Every structure is written in structure tokens, then in C-alpha cells.
């Protein structure tokens, strides 16, 4: 039965249209992208016992019982928020560990396992909500779901790059844009489902988890079965590799196990980590910064944020939520735009733009606040978010240019540990710098400025890493015999 998942069974026949592969990849990425939208569950889950309002735990309970067991009382949002940490730690770890397996097992098997993990994680979480057991939620959506994220994220990379040698950036950009767009579909869908399932005794979350788990499993499985790998040596009709080989695009391949021994791997790790750390930092502060810097001006009231009444602050919060939504849209647009542009101007130049232009934009944000221009402020943040998304989407093509296509999915998996690191570094930096500034007596709206300058400094480190990128030394390349052996293991020479 599992034969249908085997890589040999996914080799495309003659006349297969390569444009069928990106929607298959999108089907998987749009599902796992819901990881970004999980905060839609925090508020209802924080009152899953009380239903209409949270029930506080008795003060005499020890911290473990209060936070983890929470008998007859509700979970805190901070306890639920650990899910994000688990998501990104397990995403990076699993992508790194199972990337090599993916290259041999093929994208369909990896996609199907990802569907089981992500969909199954939702079902375990539903049980966790039903039994009021937070550990089941962490295990289900956090650990198992995180594994699904890691495998699902890297599953189409290698395949797309092989189908689109002429448009590597665009092809991977399209798929990775789906990861950015997943929450745009998942969050409103979850909201609709929770409203539908809500009763007097249930906030409707476990029922929503069951429904979404099944939907995601089916969509991801459909995507996995849509994957086809090109036959060895396949080229797009009428396309010939450029006669004059570009120095920054190799025709050779580096083995997965040798890639971390190259300086290029660690320089790219630094490039991704710095771009993502700065981006995550800025995403976390965008909405509160807009509200605190512009205060009442956002609702035509001539008052600072601190002087606003409760209902006015609520209005500001909805403006902040709209702003966050707009940023997620620019994040997606950037993934497609910058990754596609990198096919024409080169990956190194694309990252040069991210870092150099990014530093200018980060440093200009306080000025937009000082002159009171909401439009300029919003515009700067939108541009920054396009480059944050672009950084994610362009990196698989950068890797393929540097290390060849044989192990690009697996090497990409290893590189995603940079994302996990950035997921901790970015928010920690932002929070600590802000706390330090406030402790020194800096006004809340001005406390963001130092943070932005520090984030710009991170981009400077990324700029240096990118500037140091050179083609990989020939001693790291696989020999023809090694490549043949590897292709046999990856079932690419079957039938020859």
C-alpha cells in the first residue's frame, strides 16, 4: 500500500506539466502556515473552563499544579504561548534531522508524513482541550505539529528547484509564500468554526481542532500526492543552461554531510538568522509601536496613548490588528516578488538590498514617528516585511546556487536551525532592550528607537556575512562516483 508513496512512483511521465507542482507545494504550505495564526485560539482557550470568562486558579496551588494541571481553572495565555516556541524549535530540528531522509524517500512520502503529523497533532490537541490537559496540547500541536511543520516546509524545495532550473527563486518563492499565507486562511476559518461550535458549555475549540485537523490532513495529502519529481537530466523545453557559467551558480554538488564544513554554509546561516531575527523583532513591536507612538492621532483625538480611555484603546487595538494583517500580506507579496527578482539580479545582490535598504528603513522609522506621519510609518513597516518574507523565500535558491541541487532540500533543512535561533534571539532582544530603556526612564514611545537601531545593527552583521559569500571551494564538491552512488540511493538511477 505504501508503494504509492515511494519516490520511484513519483517520477513524472512524458508530457507532465511542471506548473502542477507549485500548487501541490502550496497546498501543503498553506496548511502548515496556520502555525503563525495559532494566537486566534489563545483567548478562547484561556477561558475553556469558565466559557464566558477565565476562571483563576486558587492562589494556594503550587506553580506546577497552577500552570500545568490547572484543576478546574483556566490556562494562562503565557502558558499557551509556549506552543510557538515548540513549533519553531521542532520545525528547525526536524527539518535538520530528516532532510537527508527526505532526499532519499522523496517529497511525496515526506509530505504525507507531514500531513499525518500536522493533522494528527490537531486531533491530539482536541483531546487535550477536551480533557483539559495542557501537556497533550504541547505534545499534539507543539511537538508532533512541529515535526509536521519541519517536514512539510522542506518537502517541495528540492523538487521545485529541479523542475524550475530557469526560475529557481520564483518557484520556491511561490511555495514558501504559502507558509506566510496559511494564517490568512486559517485564522478567519478557525474564528468561523469556533463561533459555529460554541455552546453554553463549550468555547468550541476542541471541535474546531478536530475539523481543522481533518481538513488539513486531506489538503496536505492531496498536495503530497500531487508531487512529481522530474526524470534525471530533465530540462524545460527550449531551455539551455547559460553558455557562460556564472561564478555564483555552481553546476557541481556538495554532500549534505560536507556542507556544514564550508564557510558558505555558516555565512548563509548568519544571513538567514540576522534577517529573520530583525524581522521577528520588528513584527513583535509593530502593532504596539503604532499605537504608542501615534496614540489618539490614529482616531482623530489629540491625546497621547497613556491618556486614552478604555474604549479608545480598544479602537486602537483593532487598528493595530488591522495593521498586523496588512503586514502579513506584504510578507507574502515579498516572498514572491523578491524571490522572483533574485532570478534576474542574483541572490547575493538581492540580500545586499535586504540588508542595506533594510538598515536605512529601520533607522528611518523613528523619524516617521517624530514627524507624525502614519502613512510613512506604515509604508516603512510594509517594505520591511516584504524583505523579511523575501529572505525566507530566496534562501533555497541561494543554497542551490552555492551547493548544487542534489542535497538542497536537506541542506535547507539544516539551515532552518538559523530560524529556530532567530525565533528566540529576535523577541528576547526586543523585550530586554525595551525593559532596559523603560527602567532608565525613557518614554514608552521613544523606547522603541534604540531597539530599532539594534535591529539595524543585526542587519549590518548579515550584510557582512553576505558580502563574504564566495563560490564553494572545489575540494568540497562530490566526485562523479559519489554522485552516481548517491543518485542510486535516491532512486534517481532506477531503470538505467
Amino acid at each position, binding site marked *: 500500500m505504501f508503494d504509492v508513496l515511494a519516490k520511484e512512483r513519483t517520477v513524472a511521465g512524458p*508530457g*507532465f*506539466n511542471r*506548473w*502542477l507542482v507549485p*500548487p*501541490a507545494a*502550496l*497546498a501543503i504550505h*498553506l496548511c502548515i502556515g496556520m502555525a503563525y495564526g495559532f494566537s486566534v485560539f489563545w483567548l478562547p482557550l484561556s477561558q475553556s473552563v469558565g466559557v464566558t470568562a477565565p476562571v483563576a486558579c486558587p492562589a494556594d496551588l503550587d506553580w506546577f499544579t497552577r500552570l500545568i494541571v490547572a484543576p478546574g481553572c483556566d490556562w494562562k495565555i503565557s502558558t499557551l504561548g509556549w506552543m510557538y516556541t515548540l513549533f519553531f524549535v521542532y520545525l528547525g530540528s526536524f527539518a535538520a534531522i530528516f532532510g537527508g531522509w527526505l532526499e532519499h524517500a522523496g517529497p511525496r512520502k515526506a509530505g504525507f508524513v507531514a500531513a499525518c503529523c500536522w493533522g494528527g497533532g490537531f486531533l491530539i490537541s482536541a483531546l487535550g482541550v477536551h480533557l483539559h490537559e495542557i501537556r497533550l496540547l504541547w505534545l499534539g500541536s507543539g511537538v508532533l505539529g512541529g515535526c509536521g511543520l519541519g517536514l512539510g516546509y522542506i518537502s517541495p524545495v528540492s523538487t521545485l528547484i529541479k523542475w524550475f532550473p530557469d526560475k529557481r527563486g520564483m518557484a520556491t518563492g511561490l511555495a514558501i509564500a*504559502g507558509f506566510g*499565507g496559511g494564517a*490568512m*486562511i486559517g485564522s*478567519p476559518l478557525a474564528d468561523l468554526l469556533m463561533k459555529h461550535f460554541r455552546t453554553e458549555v463549550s468555547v468550541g475549540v476542541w471541535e474546531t481542532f478536530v475539523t481543522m485537523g481533518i481538513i488539513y490532513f486531506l489538503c496536505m495529502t492531496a498536495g503530497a500526492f*500531487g508531487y512529481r519529481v522530474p526524470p534525471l537530466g530533465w530540462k524545460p523545453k527550449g531551455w539551455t543552461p547559460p553558455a557562460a557559467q556564472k561564478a555564483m551558480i555552481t553546476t557541481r554538488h556538495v554532500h549534505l554531510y560536507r556542507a556544514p564544513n564550508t564557510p558558505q554554509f555558516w555565512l548563509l546561516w548568519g544571513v538567514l538568522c540576522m534577517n529573520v531575527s530583525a524581522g521577528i523583532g520588528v513584527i513583535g513591536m509593530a502593532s504596539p509601536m503604532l499605537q504608542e507612538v501615534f496614540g489618539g492621532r490614529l482616531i482623530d483625538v489629540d491625546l497621547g496613548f497613556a491618556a486614552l480611555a478604555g474604549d479608545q484603546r480598544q479602537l486602537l487595538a*483593532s*487598528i493595530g*490588528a*488591522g*495593521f498586523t*494583517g*496588512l503586514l*502579513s*500580506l506584504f510578507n507574502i507579496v515579498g516572498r514572491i516578488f523578491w524571490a522572483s527578482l533574485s532570478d534576474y539580479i542574483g541572490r547575493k545582490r538581492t540580500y545586499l538590498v535586504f540588508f542595506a535598504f533594510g538598515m536605512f528603513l529601520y533607522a528611518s522609522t523613528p523619524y516617521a514617528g517624530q514627524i507624525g506621519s502614519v502613512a510613512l510609518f*506604515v509604508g516603512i513597516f510594509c517594505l520591511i516585511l516584504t524583505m523579511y518574507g523575501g529572505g525566507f523565500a530566496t534562501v533555497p535558491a541561494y543554497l542551490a546556487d552555492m551547493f548544487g541541487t542534489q542535497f538542497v532540500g536537506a541542506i535547507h533543512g539544516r539551515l532552518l536551525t538559523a530560524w529556530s535561533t532567530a525565533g528566540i534571539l529576535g523577541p528576547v532582544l526586543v523585550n530586554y532592550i525595551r525593559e532596559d530603556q523603560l527602567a532608565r526612564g525613557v518614554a514608552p514611545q521613544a523606547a522603541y528607537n534604540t531597539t530599532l537601531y539594534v535591529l539595524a545593527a543585526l542587519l549590518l552583521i548579515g550584510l557582512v556575512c553576505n558580502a563574504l559569500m564566495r563560490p564553494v571551494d572545489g575540494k568540497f564538491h562530490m566526485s562523479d562516483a559519489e554522485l552516481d552512488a548517491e543518485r542510486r540511493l535516491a532512486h534517481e538511477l532506477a531503470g538505467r
Partner: protein
Amino acid sequence: MTGTERTEKEAAGGNWLAVAMAWTAVGVPLAWGIYKTLEKALILFR
């Protein structure tokens, strides 16, 4: 036109139909998500 040529042409036509259907399947929910996001973001410009 030979039988083989006709079959190949028909297969190519079917392929593009499959491409259109696959892109619609992912495009429609994505378009709905973008619409919902823009609806929420409009408050910024009021």
C-alpha cells in the same frame, strides 16, 4: 494528423486544464484569506 499526435495534443490540453484546476483549488481559499485580511486592514485607512 496521426493518432499519436492527436493523443499528445489532447494530453497537453488536459494538462493545462489540470493546471487551471489545481491553481483554482489553492487560489480560491487564498483569495478569501486575502479578502478577509484587507477587510480588517481597511480600518487603518478610515
